[in-house]
């Protein structure tokens, strides 16, 4: 195969270009080699890129296991026995403090407290509380940092998700992965820096949208590329079945030969770039299927992720694929698992959702650890907000629904320079933050810090303004860092 990956003989004078290379700009600082127009933004961006990374990175890569729809922290992580004691009683006004509610429960006359129906226990050295729904996560508790006190301003899915992914509730801003692609590039010249994987549970779902992995005003090379574990892992990657590889090679050689003639005539550098991009496409066709093929994984690795990891499109299969992509140098792998929006029958739905993700999430931690990659890979797990301590709809002995709750919710991180343990406290009602709040902007600032980036310096000038992931706020939370 390697033999086939032969670049086409170009007429470009290589020595000339190579000699210019020595003129300056350390070749390492180039960032993603997939980015032919890295410096297109001009001098401003060039200056920004020259100082990267800003400090020694703790993590090199991120795998973000986004739990789309907002999992209930009260049924998974944030144990509040008081709610069980006060089951059915009205949420005291002194706790609610008139904070705004969504239109779905704003008209309720009562806000009956609903304690979880699930058993909680403490685990590991950190004695972190976890519900019985997460038995596998319980086994790796000491690798995890549970942040109990994330909060956001958004109360609806779309703006809240968009906020988590882009640092703004509205507006076509670049996604977190795009910022990292822009700032750090890819470690693998044949793969995009930012890959996206989707899966769905059976619970009440909220859609995802490609704007979540959009490059916004950054160059579109930084947009998330959707991967899947099926037969066609990347859009348009597969050649027609009737076309053998050597036949594709011959075709590309002809295309290159003709493009080269055109380059000689017009001297437009875009033509030279085009020739290179076709070569890159050819290499992607070879390499991507090798990476996305999980069938050759050893039995004990598959066991870590659970039986579903061989079913394409499941969260477990995506976790395994995420490990392979990350291991191959993809800077940011973004997963979304839909189905956590438990407005009613939450206890019933959350069981299935937790089953979908528990083993594979824990398996990913263990797998990376065994490979010695956990130290340099940051895993993030969480949704766009939390869920209320009071019941939406009818409260019965074994069922309840929970509305959106932005004031406090749990997100966990593992690996990549994170200090394991429990960070922050909520009040006894699980309604407000008692200690150490972490705003979404702080979370972004911290994640960028772990990747060696100063969130105030990673900027891009667009429409006259220098934008950043953290907009105009955010501070690094030192307590989260090992």
């Amino acid at each position, binding site marked *: 195969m390697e033999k086939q990956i032969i670049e086409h003989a170009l007429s470009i004078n290589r020595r000339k270009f190579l000699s210019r290379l020595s003129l300056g700009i350390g070749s390492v600082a180039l960032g993603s080699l997939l980015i032919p127009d890295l410096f297109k933004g001009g001098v401003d961006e060039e200056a920004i890129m020259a100082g990267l990374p800003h400090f020694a990175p703790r993590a090199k890569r991120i795998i973000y296991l986004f739990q789309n729809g907002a999992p209930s922290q009260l049924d998974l992580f944030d144990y509040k026995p008081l709610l069980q004691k006060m089951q059915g009683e009205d949420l005291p006004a002194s706790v609610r403090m008139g904070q705004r509610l969504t239109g779905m429960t704003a008209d309720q006359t009562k806000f009956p407290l609903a304690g979880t129906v699930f058993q909680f226990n403490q685990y590991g050295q950190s004695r972190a509380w976890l519900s019985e729904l997460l038995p596998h996560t319980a086994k790796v508790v000491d690798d995890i940092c549970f942040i109990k006190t994330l909060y956001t301003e958004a109360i609806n899915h779309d703006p809240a998700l968009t906020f988590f992914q882009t640092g703004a509730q509205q507006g076509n801003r670049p996604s977190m992965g795009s910022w990292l692609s822009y700032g750090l590039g890819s470690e693998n010249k044949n793969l995009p820096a930012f890959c996206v994987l989707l899966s769905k549970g059976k619970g009440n779902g909220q859609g995802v949208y490609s704007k979540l992995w959009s490059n916004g005003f950054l160059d579109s090379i930084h947009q998330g590329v959707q991967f899947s574990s099926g037969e066609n892992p990347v859009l348009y990657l597969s050649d027609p079945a009737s076309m053998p590889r050597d036949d594709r090679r011959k075709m590309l050689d002809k295309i290159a030969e003709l493009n080269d003639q055109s380059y000689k005539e017009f001297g437009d*550098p875009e033509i030279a770039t085009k020739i290179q991009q076709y070569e890159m496409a050819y290499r992607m066709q070879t390499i991507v299927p090798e990476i996305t093929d999980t069938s050759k994984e050893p039995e004990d690795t598959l066991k870590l992720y659970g039986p579903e990891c061989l079913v394409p499109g499941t969260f477990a299969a995506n976790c395994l694929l995420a490990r392979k992509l990350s291991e191959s140098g993809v800077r940011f792998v973004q997963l979304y698992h839909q189905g956590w929006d438990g407005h009613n029958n939450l206890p019933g739905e959350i069981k299935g959702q937790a089953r979908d993700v528990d083993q594979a999430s824990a398996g990913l931690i263990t797998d990376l650890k065994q490979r010695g990659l956990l130290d340099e890979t940051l895993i993030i797990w969480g949704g766009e907000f939390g869920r209320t301590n009071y019941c939406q709809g009818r409260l019965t002995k074994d069922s309840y629904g929970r509305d959106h709750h932005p004031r406090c919710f749990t997100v966990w991180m593992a690996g990549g320079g994170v200090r394991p343990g429990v960070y922050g406290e909520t009040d006894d009602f699980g309604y407000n933050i008692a200690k150490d709040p972490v705003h979404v902007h702080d979370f972004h600032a911290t994640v960028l810090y772990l990747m060696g980036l100063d969130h105030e310096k990673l900027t891009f000038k667009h429409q006259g303004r220098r934008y950043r992931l953290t907009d105009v706020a955010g501070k690094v939370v030192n307590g989260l860092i090992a």
Partner: protein
Amino acid sequence: MSFRILTILAALVISLCLVASCFHHDKSAPHSDALPDVVSYNFDIRPILSDKCYKCHGPDASHREAGLRLDIADSAYAPLKHLKGAYAIVPGKPGQSELIKRVTSTDITYMMPPPDAHLGMLTDREKKLFEKWIEQGAKYERHWAFTPPVATPAPEVSDKTWPTNEIDRFVLHRMESEGLTPNEPADKERLLKRVCLDLTGLPPSLDMMDRYMADNSANAYEKMVDSLLNTDQYGEKMAMHWLDVARYADSYGYQDDNIRTQWPWRDWVIHAFNKNMPYDQFVSWQIAGDMLPNATKETILATGFFRNHKYTEEGGVVPEEYRVEYLVDKTKTYGKGMLGVTIECAQCHDHKYDPFSQKDYYSLLAFFNNTKEVGYEGDVSVSKPAKMPKLFLDSNDRKNLLSFMYNKDTGTLSVSVMGERDTVRKTYLLKRGRYDMPGDEVQPNALPAVMPFDTVQYPRNRLGLAKWTVSRNNPLTARVFVNQLWQELFGRGIVKTSGDFGMQGELPTHPQLLDWLAVDFMDHGWNVKRLVKQIVLSSTYRQSAKATPEKLSKDPDNAFLSRGPRNRLPAEFIRDLVLSSSGLLVRTIGGPSVKPYQPEGLWEGATSGRGVLATYIQDHHDSLYRRGMYTFIKLTVPPPSMIMFDASNRDQCEVKRLKTNTPLQALIMLNDPTVLEAARVLAERLSLQRTAPNEKITEAFRRIVCRKPAEQELKTLTDYYNQQLEQFTSGKLDAGKTLAEGEYPHEKNVDVNSAAALMKLITVIYNLEESITKT
């Protein structure tokens, strides 16, 4: 091995950057390192002040440091509040000016900009410019873009033969001052392709090529331009850009993202360009067509412009939060698309660079705050094709007044449009931009820094805003549109930042040309076709696109226009080129958007499961072969082959597309069923012709690249064809399977081996860089 390619690629990038950086180390039009004889505030000084100083010493009162403003002379010359006896600027005396002392200091507690502002230091040249400017009296000027354009006569040039019209004299004058000379004219074939793509978005047909090549009359080109301007496809081409400005889409966006009906508005845009509606009228109708004294359904339909943005149908939202969000979007779209200013920056605080206060922002927003629109009409389960206020169009309307509209269906359509309330809704400044934090009440008022809103002439409502916008004295409207049009034809605006004519925007490369064009445009009744014709007839436009190494190094961006435009086609026109060159294109204008081939599972994988767009139900027959602009845009999952070629995702108003060159684009051209089917259909048709292989190859090449192949090209292609034919004939490749692409019926009695070989050959041609490039 592969590393070598990348190294070369990297080196290429770097070498270009190095070349570029020699030229573009500040934001004004490129110039040499020498200081100008007279330092201009507008061109040399304000860009530095704006970029490096205004953040803390500019228009935004709430973030102003030391009480110092550097954007107005009085404040800059005044005694400093915090440093007795010192002045930021002492005209004529750089040595006594605190500004000079600080920008040249290296003491981190004293220097400006301060290190923690992350703005970097001034370059030596910038420092010298400041010194010279202060030495020369530190004269402030009004921002060029906020001063009405004045037409100066086109300058004299030394080469009298080259210019065709005034445009060329402005352009040549600048070229001569930069030591550049124009390219020779483009060859006839390439010029024809260029102008066809620019005026219709479609390549010329074989017949057009033959006719044009045979026409040796002096005005052959002008005749061609006139006939292109009179095709229906001209309106489609012109509408494409406006659909980006207007963030047109076929769904509501946000998470459930259900279907909506805004396409009648899109069809009106096409119609307006085709009948050459004057731009002032075009804009007025879209702003206030419902409020005109003689409003008709057509003028009301035009206001759909302000209803194209996203609408939430998510259960449980706070309606007022979204009603305000919609106003914010309308205001931004108006500001960026029609005025070319970043007014949205003043939503939460005073603008940091431009003279727009937060009060100005809400006073502008107030014009849009009086419609019957509400923030929330219910969730996706009660979703309707339009949201109030609505315009209803029955089949009678469509037969009579709106006869331009696609009229296949007989039912009544509803479209979201603008409509005023009977009583005036009060507007408040929203503190920190928050919908639930109203401050002082404001009155509708257009941006005073741009042009005063004369309430004697203009009512304080959208109709007044429309009149203000298209006033002869408005300094922005004509300039901004002329610039957008220039950008669409040349690939780069005279003002490169076409969405920002403010302090942070780039300066025009040809300020006098821009003003001359804007004034001439207004003087001639805002006549768009006339303007287009004027530009494409210029010698500037008709130059060859060849770039010599010398020109590339002197002017890599072609800012001085010493060569013709050479740009990759926009996403939609790539599709159009593939369909039209293969003969598949269905030329129906307008109507509901269509769903051609798309990779499986994209909508399904990202949906909440609610609404009618949860699954992608692909269309068939004619609907597979419509122009790219009619491909259905579901906001949350826009068509991937378009997005990868840098189409707007229509989430927000966009005035300029990015241009990238990526491996994913290569994969689309190689494997998209649309391209493969087109290659197959054209191959089958050609293989039925009783012509020799090299004639078939030549015809395919002409249809796609729009010129005759050179001898060497024909040889390369013929070799490939023969090799492929041998592979198919010998059974090494499977002709039947190769030809099994697309739903279009196969031709009968086709020799499958030669058809398959031709199909592969045509795929090669589709993948040539020149094919999808305006050359």
